[in-house]
């Protein structure tokens, strides 16, 4: 069964992040340039939160302001969930579904090694299921032919 590590090998380990005192403006600029839906927020090389398009939409609406010059740490979600490289993609999927989150940082012994999205996870699970189906079909055909 595929693990988080397999996912990271596929997609690379690029993680985009901003500093906690970066402005919303700088953060949105980065997200636009990289065409990503969320970035990690760091302070002293530690993850202190995650900031997504949804966080921005919800906060602007609540405050009735564009908030472009606010520091990002006032809008981020304090990230409490993360996964480790040896967890299975099924476990990750279950966590994302139950918590309704689309992105999870990957931590290896307190070191940040990646950020995976629900899209990455779904792609992997689909292709695992395809492989299983193909294997079962081959098994059935192989036995039939040899008989």
């Amino acid at each position, binding site marked *: 069964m595929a693990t988080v590590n397999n996912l990271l090998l596929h997609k690379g380990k690029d993680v985009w992040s901003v500093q906690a005192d970066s402005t919303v*403006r700088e953060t*949105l*600029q980065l*997200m*636009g340039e990289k065409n990503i*839906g969320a970035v990690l927020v760091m302070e002293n090389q530690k993850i202190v939160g995650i900031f997504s*398009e*949804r966080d*921005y*939409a*919800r906060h*602007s*609406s*609540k405050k*009735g*302001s*564009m908030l*472009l010059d606010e520091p990002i740490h006032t809008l981020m979600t304090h990230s409490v969930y993360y996964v480790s490289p040896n967890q299975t993609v099924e476990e990750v999927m279950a966590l994302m579904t139950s918590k309704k989150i689309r992105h999870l940082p990957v931590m290896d012994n307190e070191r940040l090694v990646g950020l995976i999205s629900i899209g990455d996870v*779904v792609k992997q*699970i*689909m292709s695992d*299921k*395809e492989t*299983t*189906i193909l294997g*079962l*079909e081959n*098994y*059935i055909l192989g*036995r039939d032919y040899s008989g």
Partner: protein
Amino acid sequence: MATVKDLLKAKFTQVWYVTPTSTVSDALKLLAEQQIGAVLVVEAGKIVGIFSERDFARKALLPEVNLGTPVGDLMVRGVYYVTPDQSVESCMAMMTAKRFRHLPVLEDGKLVGVISIGDVIRQIMSEKDSTIQSLEDYIWVHMI
């Protein structure tokens, strides 16, 4: 193989929409209240666009944009749609290729629902699981 109609039957679909003259502020409030990521923009009974959290995040940096801006200025025009008899696989292909999370469903030009990437994936996964189940059953019955 399941169709869009099956997906719509499986859940009660309330379709939320705004008009092109609604403000960004109105649209964001609706997104927050309904806990959704995108709304359709409808004018005189016709879909003219879609507005998502992403559209807001991407365009917020333009100097002329603020919460009072009409949604019509920020929405994505030329909305792709599906029909009830289309296969769920074809929706998945469209969503993946165009990187959409939502697709309106039109029947005879009339809006009858919206399907999300989550609905589509759940359906396809469950079909794959039942294929695996029947292949395994076949092996148990015929080959072991």
